[in-house]
């Protein structure tokens, strides 16, 4: 292990303590529920957006709690769902009376626990809606697109739905925007190394030096192809083919691009990928109207990257460019 940690079983709580200590003006925990964290100014007078999932993905999930983004989050252990009660605590603290959108990645444990929270919210008369992020195009074929995992595309969904909530849209409207953003977004990723769970101390899967796994998930879920590492351009081509085959942006259209590092891959390499993505898109006469290159959804210290493309219309364009700020994200 090459980890700067103390007691592995206390890892997540230490991280949260430090984040709250560092950013008390922007974030606070729900009293009595240290794993349920909300904007310091929650609930405000707006629709709440609660997200959550396992730890180990910073800035996902906690990093997207902020102005123009989510209002609250429930933080699970490393790569594990939060409990229904934790989600519910974030829900209550995010609810201004205008209801709460649950916006999170499509993982079994999270779906069950957010479902539980929705039941509890219902009992308390808090209206909720759920939108699952399912952007990982390589995690299931198009015929079973609703079973796909949510990965870096979450950032796009947060950004658009968060901007809609911030300007005062209704719960129905915020949910519609979130669904629209998800429908317009595809991600494909590649892993070059495994990760080690702090508490387990062993790699969650094996990937030899010099190998790559196309379609890897952000918890190391196996992908669709494992083979010798190829040049960055060839890797970008594989990922873009998977994305564009489905998204098929027409000539003249505009897209948002996110080239995301999974943890250990240097920013320099992400720009090498970005360069190829830009050439591919401009070859199709598609304009990159909005771009992010960096670490936006990670998997601890995994080496690898993902590419996310969102097909924009005027509505999404405006929302994606709207101001947003959290301790981890500024736009």
């Amino acid at each position: 292990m090459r980890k700067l940690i103390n007691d592995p079983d206390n890892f997540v709580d230490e991280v949260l303590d430090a984040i709250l200590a560092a950013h008390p003006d922007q974030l606070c925990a729900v009293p009595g529920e240290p794993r349920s964290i909300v904007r310091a100014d929650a609930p405000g007078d707006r629709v709440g957006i609660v997200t959550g999932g396992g730890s180990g993905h910073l800035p996902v999930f906690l990093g997207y709690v902020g102005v123009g983004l989510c209002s609250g989050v429930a933080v699970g252990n490393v790569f594990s769902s939060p409990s229904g009660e934790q989600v519910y605590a974030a829900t209550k603290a995010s609810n201004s009376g205008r209801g709460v959108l649950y916006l999170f990645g499509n993982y079994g444990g999270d779906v069950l626990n957010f479902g539980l929270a929705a039941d509890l919210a219902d009992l308390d008369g808090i209206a909720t809606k759920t939108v699952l992020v399912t952007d990982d195009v390589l995690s299931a074929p198009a015929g079973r697109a609703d079973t796909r995992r949510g990965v870096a595309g979450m950032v796009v969904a947060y950004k658009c739905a968060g901007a809609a909530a911030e300007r005062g849209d209704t719960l129905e409207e915020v949910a519609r925007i979130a669904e629209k953003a998800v429908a317009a977004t595809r991600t494909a990723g590649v892993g070059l190394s495994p990760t080690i769970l702090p508490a387990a101390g062993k790699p969650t899967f094996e990937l030899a030096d010099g190998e790559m796994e196309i379609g890897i998930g952000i918890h190391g879920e196996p992908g669709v192809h494992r083979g010798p590492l190829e040049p960055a351009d060839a890797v970008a081509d594989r990922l873009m083919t998977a994305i564009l085959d489905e998204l098929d942006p027409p000539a003249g259209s505009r897209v948002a691009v996110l080239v995301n590092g999974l943890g250990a891959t240097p920013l320099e390499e992400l720009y090498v990928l970005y360069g190829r993505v830009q050439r591919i898109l401009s070859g199709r006469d598609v304009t990159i109207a909005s771009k992010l290159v960096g670490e936006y959804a990670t998997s601890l210290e995994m080496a690898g990257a993902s590419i996310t493309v969102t097909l924009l219309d005027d509505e999404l364009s405006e929302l994606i460019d709207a101001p947003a700020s959290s301790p981890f994200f500024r736009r």
Partner: protein
Amino acid sequence: MSVHTLRPVLADALLTLEAARDELRDLDAAIGDGDLGITISEGARAIREGLADLGDDATVGTILRTAAQRFATANPSTMSALVAGGLLAASRELGDTDTLDRAGCLTLLETATATIQQRGKAELGDKTILDALVPTIEVLRNAAGDDRTVLKEMIGAAEEAVAATAGLQSQRGRAAWVGERTIGHPDGGATAYLRLLQAIDRALASSTESD
């Protein structure tokens, strides 16, 4: 069996179950994310601690509800949400009694299994914990002989079921994404249930010895 006899046996069994941590991590890591070892071992410990805090007059319903709450929050995950939901439903079903006889065990397992099935939407053969639960319920429902014998038969049925999951392709949860590559690996959730039954058997054996 009265709750008084049951509680130390359960505590002992849960302690044994914690030792399955590495095996379950490896099984889950092979076709999932590897956290099942933590879910089960932390969950077992949390239940033990929760039960230790309960008064001597705790009913079966209270014990199951406590177990459900502790298991749900120890290491939240698919398994913990499903099992906790199942235990909670069973606690409502069994309620205020302070004995758990064979019929009670059957109700417990049937109720929990039905809830897991309903929430997780898995079917038999989807390579989940259900594949081990269902055949042991069958054994229990048709059982003759003393408790230990029935338990041994249930263990036998679970062992067979777990072995059979190795031949299946996962259709639910994270493992479903792994597709064909799941074939050859037994299911972690089903294995966890088998380990629980074995741990209860061992705890019963040593409680008999020390009696």
